[in-house]
């Protein structure tokens, strides 16, 4: 399942929680881990002058500097590396999301692991209300699942045994289900299949109270329908697998997903990455996309790692 992990890191505190999970996975599942760091952004095309992403200083890039940064990363993760059998460190220059996608295409990892936004953990991340822009750009087009660990609290589980799959019934959710189900079977996990019924489509709470389309009867009818849809879409695909639960909760989707995960002590959330705007080809093999806001909010708030899957995952 996890034999090759690409850990994309800024080698700063923002990625410490992701490092804890990535190295733990490598040790626990006997995987090779590739630590990947984009050290600087060229000031202009093909220039040797780069802006160091950590210090913000403009430096002249040569092999010595590259080796120095590699050694710094080695030292930074020394505690985890000494317990890991199969690891490598690679540093490069360029735009972080492009380079991560580039190495992912070459390396074909089973999963990309990333931290939250640099310098935006905790309360600040919620003020920003977005995940890191590098994550957004990678998650939209990566050909493999992308895991993000934003909060420190999400990194204290160690392994996966209780997986929450949150579905919006989209095509990308189908791919996310396939991945989640393969994972729960292989790692013998408990499996929670969950849908959050969005009742926030009203303009405001007054509208919600007076609009007759939101009576409790209609909400409960919708819950029942969503429950039927869950069974129709997924139960038949579970075969002999019995260790699962299916639930529909009404509310604000990201709140309900995070709440369900917390109440059921989920140690992993798997969900689709759905873009809010159409994907736009920006030349070459890359595509620019924005992450769906539900997944984004779940990533920011969850008490466990979150894996997002876009509709390209699994394509050759």
């Amino acid at each position, binding site marked *: 399942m996890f034999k090759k992990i690409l850990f994309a890191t800024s080698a700063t505190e923002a990625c410490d929680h992701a490092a804890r999970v990535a190295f733990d996975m490598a040790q626990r599942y006997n995987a090779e881990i590739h630590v990947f760091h984009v050290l600087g952004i060229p000031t202009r095309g093909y220039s040797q002058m780069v802006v160091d992403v950590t210090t913000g200083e403009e430096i002249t890039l040569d092999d010595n500097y590259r080796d120095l940064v590699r050694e710094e990363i080695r030292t930074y993760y020394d505690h985890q590396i000494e317990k890991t059998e199969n690891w490598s460190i690679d540093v490069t220059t360029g735009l972080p999301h492009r380079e991560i996608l580039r190495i992912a295409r070459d390396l074909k990892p089973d999963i990309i692991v990333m931290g939250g936004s640099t310098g935006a953990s905790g309360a600040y991340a919620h003020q920003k209300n977005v995940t890191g822009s590098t994550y957004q750009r990678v998650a939209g087009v990566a050909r493999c699942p992308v895991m993000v660990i934003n*909060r420190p609290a999400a990194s*204290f*589980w160690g392994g996966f045994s209780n997986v929450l799959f949150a579905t919006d019934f989209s095509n990308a959710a189908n791919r996310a289900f396939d991945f989640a189900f393969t994972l729960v079977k292989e790692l013998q996990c408990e499996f929670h299949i969950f849908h959050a019924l969005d009742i926030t489509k009203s303009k405001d709470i007054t509208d919600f109270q007076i609009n007759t389309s939101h009576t409790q009867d209609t909400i409960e009818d919708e819950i029942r329908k969503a429950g039927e849809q869950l069974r129709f879409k997924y139960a038949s695909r579970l075969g002999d697998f019995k260790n699962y639960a299916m639930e529909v909760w009404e509310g604000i989707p990201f709140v309900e997903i995070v709440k369900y995960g*917390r109440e059921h*002590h989920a*140690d992993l959330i798997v969900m689709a990455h759905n873009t809010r705007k159409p994907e736009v080809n920006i030349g070459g093999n890359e595509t620019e996309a924005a992450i769906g806001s539900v997944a984004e909010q779940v990533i920011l708030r969850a008490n466990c790692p979150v894996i997002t899957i876009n509709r390209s995952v699994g394509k050759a």
Partner: protein
Amino acid sequence: MKKKILIIEDDPAVADYLITLFEDNGYATISATSAQEGFSIAQKEHPDLITLDLELPDEWGPRFYRKLSADKTLKNTPVIVISGLSGNKYAVSKAVASFSKPFDREELLSVVQKYI
């Protein structure tokens, strides 16, 4: 009868400190150095309160808590997280309190007194 506190902590220095602190203040203590040992003791002894380190040799604290809360006879036992890891406050969402090492002994005692 003295109230009983189960201390789950793999660092012997911290465990000794907690044992002394609680016993000097009128509590009975039992200790475990791993999550598995802690759970077996909890099932046998039914402590009134548990102090839980997050990073244990065999398991992380949240996973221990999940097991504890699935046990009908133990699920309401108050748990206090004591850990050196940053962000520990939110690791076990239903813990009654969380302390970062080094912690204030009076503050810890006042929380313990509040719950048992």
